[in-house]
């Protein structure tokens, strides 16, 4: 089974580039050039140098001793929360900004949900001196205020998306409209493994540093680079794809993707795409998305802005459909409790997104001795308001 992209831009039945003609030249330019540019030695050198000296990679693989005791397995945390700007998102924005420069682009646009991708984009734009416009749902602007302030201080213009559910999906629509209206000098840095081909493949390549490092670190720490399980949360699916990437072809490693169940999969307030979705087209690719019988996209719900998205990337849809990945869901409450647990047992406040992956440990059973890697995709600073309110702190 091929789990990676084919020459037509598909992962099995999913992917492609369902875009209006106005976007074709931009997307085609990217498609023709991305592998060539990324494969270039000077690109690789600059990319890895920045990941090391600017982002602070490799991010540690930390054996969480007290959690391990509690769950009766070796629980390793891949510490993407320690990256500069506080999440895995920067791996992708560093890659894309270098690519945009090589394509001669002068203006950068992005969408953001939790604000982590917006901050990571505004950061690399400041670093390289490029103009930056970030679209963000009006509701997310309210619930992630610290990140809005960071983006502004970094010099980005934050534009509220006021249509639809006023969250990540709508911010993505606005960014696409901006790109349609600015067809020459602008590069759109998509923040997850979604969008038209080649975005899902390209973003996965940039995030694959997560599993590349994890394999090396597992060898150093355990003598074995094959964990029994890897877990990650899925909004669009970029930290999960980065965590899975180098394990995908190794079928002994179980891949667990944790979706946001919201108030519960059957409550009508959920973002658990594989449970509630059907095949269709959203934001330029064929994938699985939450929609009505008439094909209208359904507004999702999750306590975590970064997972509040009605679709998943096409490669995830393929891993789900082929059974290669196990797709599960965790409710708002379970995630918040898991966030508090990690904080009090290991002294790490996780992003609520990442807390979804941690929460699933509670539902697994271990014999003892299994090696389990959880992608700790981000830190919880941006979520303090939500945590404080929920736990009356």
């Amino acid at each position, binding site marked *: 089974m091929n789990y990676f992209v084919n020459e037509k831009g598909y992962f099995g039945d999913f992917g492609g580039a369902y875009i209006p003609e106005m976007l074709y030249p931009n997307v085609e330019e990217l498609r023709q050039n991305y592998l060539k540019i990324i494969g270039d030695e000077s690109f690789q050198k600059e990319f890895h140098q920045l990941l090391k000296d600017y982002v602070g990679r490799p991010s540690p693989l930390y054996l969480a001793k007290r959690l391990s005791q509690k769950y009766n397995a070796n629980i390793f945390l891949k510490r993407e929360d320690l990256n500069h700007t506080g999440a895995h998102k920067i791996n992708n924005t560093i890659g894309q900004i270098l690519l945009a420069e090589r394509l001669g682009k002068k203006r950068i646009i992005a969408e953001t949900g939790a604000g982590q991708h917006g901050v990571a984009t505004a950061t690399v734009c400041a670093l390289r001196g490029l103009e930056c416009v970030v679209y963000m749902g009006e509701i997310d602007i309210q619930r992630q205020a610290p990140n809005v302030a960071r983006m502004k201080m970094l010099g980005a213009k934050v534009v509220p998306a006021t249509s639809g559910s006023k969250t990540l999906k709508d911010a993505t629509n606005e960014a696409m*409209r901006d790109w349609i209206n600015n067809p020459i000098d602008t590069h759109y840095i998509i923040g997850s493994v979604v969008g038209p081909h080649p975005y899902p493949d390209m973003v996965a390549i940039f995030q694959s540093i997560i599993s590349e490092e994890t394999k090396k670190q597992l060898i150093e720490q355990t003598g074995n680079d094959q964990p029994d399980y890897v877990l990650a949360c899925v909004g669009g699916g970029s930290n999960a794809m980065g965590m899975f990437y180098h394990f995908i072809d190794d079928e002994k490693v179980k891949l667990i993707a944790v979706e946001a169940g919201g108030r519960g999969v059957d409550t009508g307030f959920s973002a658990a795409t594989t449970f509630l979705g059907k095949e269709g087209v*959203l934001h330029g690719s064929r994938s699985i998305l939450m929609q009505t019988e008439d*094909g209208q996209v359904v507004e999702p719900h999750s306590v975590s802005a970064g997972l509040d998205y009605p679709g998943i990337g096409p490669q995830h849809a393929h891993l789900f459909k082929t059974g290669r990945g196990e797709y599960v869901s965790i409710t708002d409450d379970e995630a918040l409790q898991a966030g508090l647990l990690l904080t009090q047992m290991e002294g790490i406040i996780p992003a609520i997104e990442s807390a979804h992956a941690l929460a699933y440990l509670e539902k697994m059973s271990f014999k003892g001795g299994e090696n389990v890697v959880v992608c700790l995709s981000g830190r919880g600073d941006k979520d303090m308001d939500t945590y404080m309110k929920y736990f009356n702190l």
Partner: protein
Amino acid sequence: MSRIKELFQTKKNILSIYYTAGYPGLNDTVQIAETLEQSGADLLEIGFPYSDPVADGPTIQASSKQSLDQGMTLKLLFEQLKDLRKKVSIPVLLMGYVNPVLQFGVENFCKACVEVGVDGCIVPDLPMAEYEALYQGIFEGNGLSNIFLVTPQTSTERIHKIDGLSNGFIYLLSSSATTGQNLQVSEGTESYFSRIADMKLKNPTMIGFGIDSKETFDKACEYANGAIIGSAFVKALDANDLNGSVKTFMQKFKG
């Protein structure tokens, strides 16, 4: 001969009007079509609304949302159009995004179009490659035209390919833009329009996006077989005087 072919063979300066089905009132769809034909429209594009219309500006986003909120679906639209051909004789296209079509089923969608007398479709986010590989057979088997868009950034090679796949007309965008912005005929736009006119395409062309006055309409007609008005018309619709607002708007163009 198909209604679209006949129109382009017999008429110049074709005036095509886009509007959103189910807007302003859920059941206004056919009434608007009738009044438009009576007021001199040559071709109609009826939009079926989508929750995430990325190629559309604020006006059509808002009309789409209102229509959906009022309960519009593709299924309901085909019911509304059941007696279309008893009332309207000019060619009619459906325009909308690909996901609702996929959920309806492409084959079912094409059959339903034919049944009610729709002549063709415009699906902006159904790209040429996918159309060719999966849908062309179904569309053509049902005798439906599929209309592709071309922008100032579309390469000459690609325009020829689009011309080869098209069987109705080619939709020229005045600029790469979401719907509803004013047409600014700059030197760049003129040279793009003339470049296309010089290509001697087998299909006729219509210019759309941003046409909102007699002046911009006439300008567009210098370079193409006609022009398409969308957002400006949708904006002019008045729920309290539907027929009146349609007629007043059309007078500007038909005099």
